[in-house]
Each structure stands twice: as structure tokens, then as C-alpha cells.
């Protein structure tokens, strides 16, 4: 494999350099019907799960077929998406914020053949390539982070638990029976590259062991002031350590009680690894939302403090999620989001109905806002 140059010359990096041009202009990618009707849409309707029609004041109609996708996607798969878009949509498509793919059709006669085609395409292993769904009062695709595929501080995988969870939730991806829509998100550590903190159900990777200190190599690989500065809780201090052979090395000491397990020190200093099979696992948080509909946006709350990583299918985690979802589906009123339902029945009832254990881990003790989560009334349910 010979190196093929584009013409870039590392000795003259600024030669012919083009910078600061930004993204492509969105209008280049609009289907004609969007260009024509932008800002003129009157209303929409979900014809069946995953299929929408938008109607314009010009009378034009735009049909959208929404399909789920693993956000980790190969070029072969993307080319297949392109082939479908060429066949039915004059080469137009879009992606949603939640990693769904949307095929856009302006000619109704192409709609059913498109759906039929999508439903027949499967991977060799048997899973759907393009499951139609993800609309209305159901579960749509899970937004997530990199996990073990690419990240250096994850406490769990991302693609694996998402696949396991979506298999369990699949019926609700293709149905709209829930009281309101349910947004599920995953972040593989507390740095939350995927913001899961306002999701109906959040899956969060969490470390529980402070970093190990690789004293022998630390000073060779890391700049100690940077490792110290990386810690958000100031738990790292410089320390001279005497090795077994009597040599003294510069290193650091971690105040373990102060560690919040974020891994930021490991980012700065590879001699402070914290990942651990027994230490790492998953926190389940529930009841968040971002919409302003009826009630204000809400943060998710911790419902289960720890679930071990059970690769490849995380059965304890998927059981908990399924259980919460089913209790919510049966008990909540129409339009009630998961968090609104939990607040109406009271969190004491939520734990009872979902058969979840309440432990001291679920009482907030992190800085000032903790106080406002304690019960400051004599009103509660037995």
C-alpha cells in the first residue's frame, strides 16, 4: 500500500491551504419539494409508525419514512442507504438528531414500494437493516456515545448496550401505544459526551474505582502539574515515592474519598488508569425531558445506582428498563411523560410500583443542589 498524496506538502503546510469554509450550504441538499415549501408547511400526520406526511399551504405533500440505524455505520451501509435514496427519493435523504435515517418522498405512489423494500433488507445475522418506526408515542432510537469502540475513559460499551436495549424495546419502536414518547439515551461515562441528563430513561456508564497510580512511569509519561490540574475535585497531589529498589521518583497521590471517577486525569496522564471489570458498570436514570410541553424541562433522576457490565447483552440492565417502561405504560395518563408520571404518583410509589430497591446511593449528597431534593414537607405516602 503505497502512500498516495493529494498534493499536500508537510514542509509547506500553508501552501494552497483552504481553511474556515464551514459546512456545505444546506440548500444544496434540499429536495425540490422542501426548497419550494420551506416555511409553508401547514400540518403533519403520522400515517403509521415511522411514516409521516407533511402538507403545505401550496397543496404539496412530503412523505417521510423514518428508519432506525446504528449510529456506528460503515460506508458499505451508507452506500446502501444512498442506493435506496436514488431508487425512491431522487437521491435525497436526511438524518435526525437521534440517529434515525429519513427517506423523503414527494410522490405518494413510491411510498409503499419503499417501505416494502426497507422491510425486506436484513443483515446476514438476521437483524433489520432499516426498521421503520421511531415516531409518536413510542420509543425512538437511542442517542449514544462511543464506548469501547473508540473512547479512552468509558465505564461501559455504547453500541452493545444500545443494541441489547433496542432489541428489548423494539416493539415500542414500531408502535405508538405509550402515554407519551419515551427518549432513551446512553453516555458511557459521567463526562456525558451524549447528554443523557434530561432523558426519560438514561443509561450511564460509571466507574467506581479511583485511578491506579503507575508510579514507575508516571513522571516519564506525564507532566505532573497537568495531571493535578485535570482533577475537578482537587483530589490529586504531587508525591515523592520510593520504589522497591530504593530509587525515589516523582509521582502523585490520589485522595480516593474525593474521587468522582471522571477519568479526566487519565486523559491528561496515561499513568492513571481507572477502568476495571468489577468497578465499572451502569447507572439507570429516569424522568428527564427537554420539551417545554405542559411542564418545564426536567433532569433525569437516579433510579438504580449500579448494574454490572454483563456483556454481550446486559440482561439485568435491559430487564430494569423494560420493567420501568411497562409499569409506566400501564399506569401513566395519556400525555404524561415518564417524569411527570413519577412526580404525580410520588417517587415512593415509583420505586414500589417498579419494584426497585431504594438505597442510600439515591439520596443526593453532591454539593448545594442536594438539599433541595430532600423531602421538606410532611406530605408523603406510606
Amino acid at each position, binding site marked *: *500500500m*503505497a502512500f*498516495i498524496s*493529494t498534493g*499536500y506538502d508537510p514542509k509547506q503546510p500553508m501552501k494552497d491551504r*483552504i*481553511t474556515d469554509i*464551514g*459546512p456545505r450550504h*444546506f440548500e444544496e*441538499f434540499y429536495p425540490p419539494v422542501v426548497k419550494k415549501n*420551506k416555511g409553508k*408547511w401547514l*400540518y*403533519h400526520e403520522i*400515517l403509521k409508525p415511522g411514516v409521516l406526511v*407533511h402538507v403545505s399551504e401550496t397543496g404539496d405533500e*412530503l412523505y417521510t419514512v423514518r428508519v432506525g440505524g*446504528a449510529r*456506528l*455505520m*460503515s*460506508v*458499505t*451501509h451508507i452506500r446502501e442507504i*444512498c*442506493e435506496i435514496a436514488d431508487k425512491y427519493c431522487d437521491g435525497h435523504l*436526511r438524518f*435526525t*438528531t437521534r440517529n434515525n435515517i429519513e427517506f423523503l418522498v414527494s410522490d405518494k405512489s413510491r411510498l409503499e414500494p419503499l417501505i416494502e423494500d426497507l422491510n425486506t433488507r436484513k*443483515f*446476514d*445475522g438476521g*437483524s*433489520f437493516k432499516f426498521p421503520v418506526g421511531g415516531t*409518536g408515542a413510542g420509543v425512538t432510537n437511542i442517542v449514544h456515545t462511543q464506548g469501547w*469502540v473508540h473512547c*479512552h475513559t468509558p465505564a461501559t460499551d455504547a*453500541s*452493545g448496550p444500545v*443494541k441489547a436495549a433496542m*432489541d428489548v424495546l*423494539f416493539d415500542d419502536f414500531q408502535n405508538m401505544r*405509550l402515554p407519551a414518547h419515551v427518549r432513551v439515551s446512553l453516555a458511557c461515562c*459521567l463526562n456525558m459526551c*451524549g447528554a*443523557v*441528563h*434530561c432523558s426519560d430513561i438514561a443509561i450511564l456508564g460509571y466507574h467506581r474505582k479511583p485511578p491506579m497510580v503507575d508510579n514507575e512511569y508516571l513522571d516519564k509519561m506525564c507532566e505532573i502539574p497537568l495531571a493535578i490540574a485535570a482533577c*475537578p475535585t482537587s483530589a490529586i497531589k504531587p508525591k515523592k515515592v520510593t520504589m522497591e529498589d530504593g530509587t525515589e521518583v516523582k509521582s502523585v497521590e490520589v485522595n480516593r474519598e474525593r474521587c468522582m471517577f*471522571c477519568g479526566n486525569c487519565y486523559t491528561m496522564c496515561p499513568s492513571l488508569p481507572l477502568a476495571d471489570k*468489577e468497578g465499572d458498570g451502569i447507572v439507570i436514570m429516569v424522568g*428527564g425531558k427537554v*420539551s417545554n*410541553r*405542559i411542564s418545564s*424541562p426536567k*433532569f433525569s433522576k437516579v433510579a438504580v445506582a449500579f448494574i454490572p457490565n454483563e*456483556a454481550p447483552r446486559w440482561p439485568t440492565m435491559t430487564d430494569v428498563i423494560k420493567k420501568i417502561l411497562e409499569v409506566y405504560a400501564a399506569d401513566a395518563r395519556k400525555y404524561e411523560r415518564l417524569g411527570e408520571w413519577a412526580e404525580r404518583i410520588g417517587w415512593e410509589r415509583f420505586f414500589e410500583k417498579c419494584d426497585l430497591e431504594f438505597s442510600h446511593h439515591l439520596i443526593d449528597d453532591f454539593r448545594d*443542589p442536594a438539599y433541595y431534593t430532600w423531602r421538606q414537607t410532611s406530605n408523603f405516602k406510606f
Partner: protein
Amino acid sequence: MAKHDTPLLDQLESGPWPSFVSDLKQEAEVRAKNEKNVEYQIPQDVVEDLLGVLELSFKDGTTHWKHGGIVGVFGYGGGVIGRYCDQPQQFPGVAHFHTMRVNQPAGKFYTSDYLRKLCDLWEFRGSGLTNMHGSTGDIVLLGTTTPQLEEIFYELTHDFNQDLGGSGSNLRTPSDCVGQARCEYACYDTQDLCHHLTNEYQDELHRPAFPYKFKFKFDGCPNCCVASIARSDLSFIGTWKDDIRIDQDAVKGYVDGNLKPNGGAHAGRDWGPFDIVKEVVGLCPTECMRYENGKLEINNRECTRCMHCINVMPRALRPGKVKGCSLLAGAKAPIVDGAQMASLIVPFIEVNKEDGYQAIKDVIEKIWDWWMEEGKNRERLGELMKRQGLQKLIEVLEIDPVPQHVQEPRHNPYIFWKEEEVTGGWDRDVNEFRKHHQR
């Protein structure tokens, strides 16, 4: 024949949801066969080795990646995330596995031509694996070697008219909802504003001089489909000032059962016949609606524009015509102080394309000047707001405090009065005081 056995990953091939494992295997096979005679610029078995290292993680429950901070493209302080495998001998194909963030087009509309061309480039110079899309919104090209970074950047800028996205202490790649392109609720052109500001602030996006990351997100209406209120330092939420437009005939259509409430969003269960009093009027959080004698009335002055009634009856109700957006500031997800929701700073601002969104840019630049000077290293805007107070930000923006800025007034009277606010100032003559008060 697969290079590594993957018994654990293989268990993720079954089940209905699209299997990323099947997709990775498919890509590994395409590369192994190389029917198109691509002169792969990174190891041909890169995907095999990724499957191998991922299987190892599934077995030992820990990651095998190390962070790299040096790699990037010349002159840019963002857009590339360095990544190295901690078992390079076992998995040489992914020894170097850097990510590039490519700035997605606003609205995430694509043509197949563009995507195919991008696939060709990424198959040739990278792993052929992507994220469509990353959490912030970028197209993420997952896995290539250091020498390829400049080559890819060169091709993107020269042949694709396409730039990288942000990372590090930069403006992060802004993102938006589908907006007016395909949504009747959108109160401003999210795509145009997103694209315009992305281009206006390219220097901030590529050359880090902020204390930490800074995110813009554009939601066309208070439904907040891109979650701007929860995850952007500056959140643009479409809104309107005048009356919700009502089509009483369509209201009747819903009441009579001729139109599908919620645009059909609840069709998966029999919830009984649509009850406008219970489902719309009764759930209105401000109780500003009335349904009498077959007519729906809204006391618009009391409406807080939560979107519920509009969501339930999209054919009967539409946002008003005097549209703009609300600006909220300071949202973020994690550490140090925990999650923060955005706080309202400008209740209504015009979204004026004609003058290049000047009113909005004025706000942005005042905020940045304040945060760049006062923000500590790695302090998000929301944390600075917490430390110095919302008052300070309002002062910086030169806007008047209004009750809309708070959920409720302060719970304590410990007001930090300023000297100039108190008649006569703070300097007093103690001897004058003593004339009337004995020691």
C-alpha cells in the same frame, strides 16, 4: 475467514435492531475482498482488528484505547481526536485510530452524491467506519492514521468544499432541528441561522481561545427537538408574541372525530374518543383555554407557549405570526457542578436574516467577551453565571432585569447593594454620628 474469533460480539447479531456487529463484519469482508481495487491508505484489516479489540473489551470489561492530544490538522486546535490502541501488537490495524469531525450541513439533509463521495474518500484514507452522527451533530469519521489527517483535510477543503467541526475549547459545531424545512411549528429558519453563525464564527470554531467548550443549538419551537435547553451554552428556542392562530372548523373536525388528534402520535392504543376539554383545555398549564358552544377560546396573554394544544391539534392551531426566538444560556451536562439547565436571558429577540442577525450577534459577542475575561480555565458559561450571578450577565448584556428572568424572586434578603444605589453613598463622618450618639 474472520481474523479474530468474536464469540461475544456474535451474540449481538441476532434480534431485530440493526446490528452494528453485522455491519462491521460486512465492512471487514468488503475490505478483505477489495473488489474495486482500492489502494487502501490504512491497514486493509482495520475493521477486523477493531472487531478483535472490541471483543477483548467485551471479555475483560475495560476499554483498550488511549487518548492522544497532539494530532490534528495544521493551524486548527480542534476537529481531530487522537486515539491509540493499548494492544497495538495484537491489533496493529487499529494501533492509530484517530477520529475526524466533519461539520454536517444544517438540518442534516444530504444527497446521495455527496455521501457516496465521502464514502469513497473515507474508504480510501480511513477505516470506512463512521458515526452518522456524533452527539454534537458532526459527521464522525472513525479511525485513521496520523499521516492521513492532512490528506483528508486537503481533499475535504479542495474537493468537497467542506470543513471540519469543532472540539476542545472551541465553539463546537452548531446544530439545529429540521425547522421550517419540514416542520410547521418552527418559528424561525433554524438552518439559516445555524449555517450563518457557523460561518461567521469559523475562527472561534477552529482556533481555541475560550476557557472551555461553547455550544450553540437551534430549536425552532419550545418542543426542543435538539435539546438546546439542556445541552447548549446558548440555546435559541423559537417562539411568538401574538395570538395562536385558530381554525375553528378544524377544531370541530377534531371534536367530531374527523381529524386524528396528535397527528396520529397516539394511534397505537385505544384511548377512547378524543375529549378536547380533558385533553387540551384541562391539561393547559396556565388554564388559559376555554371550550364552549363548540368554540375554542385562548386567552393568549396568559399563554406561556408550551406547545401542548398545538401538538394535539396541529391542523387547528398554529403559532402566531410575530415570531422570533428566546435566548437561554448556560446549559451543560456533567461536571464540575453537575448538570445545569439553560436560564432565560433574552425573552424575545428578532431573528432578522436581512441584517445578518445583528441583534443576535451582539448578544453572542458580549457574552463571549465576558466569559473569555472572567471565566476560569475549564469553566462553562453556566458555571460562570452561577459564580458571578445572573445579574452580572444581565448587566453585561445591558438589558433590563424583568420578572421573566426568574422562576420566583430570591428567598433571602441578602442583597449585595452597590454603593451608588444607596442615597449619600457609603462614606460617612463618624464624628457627625457621635454628635447624636454617645460612645
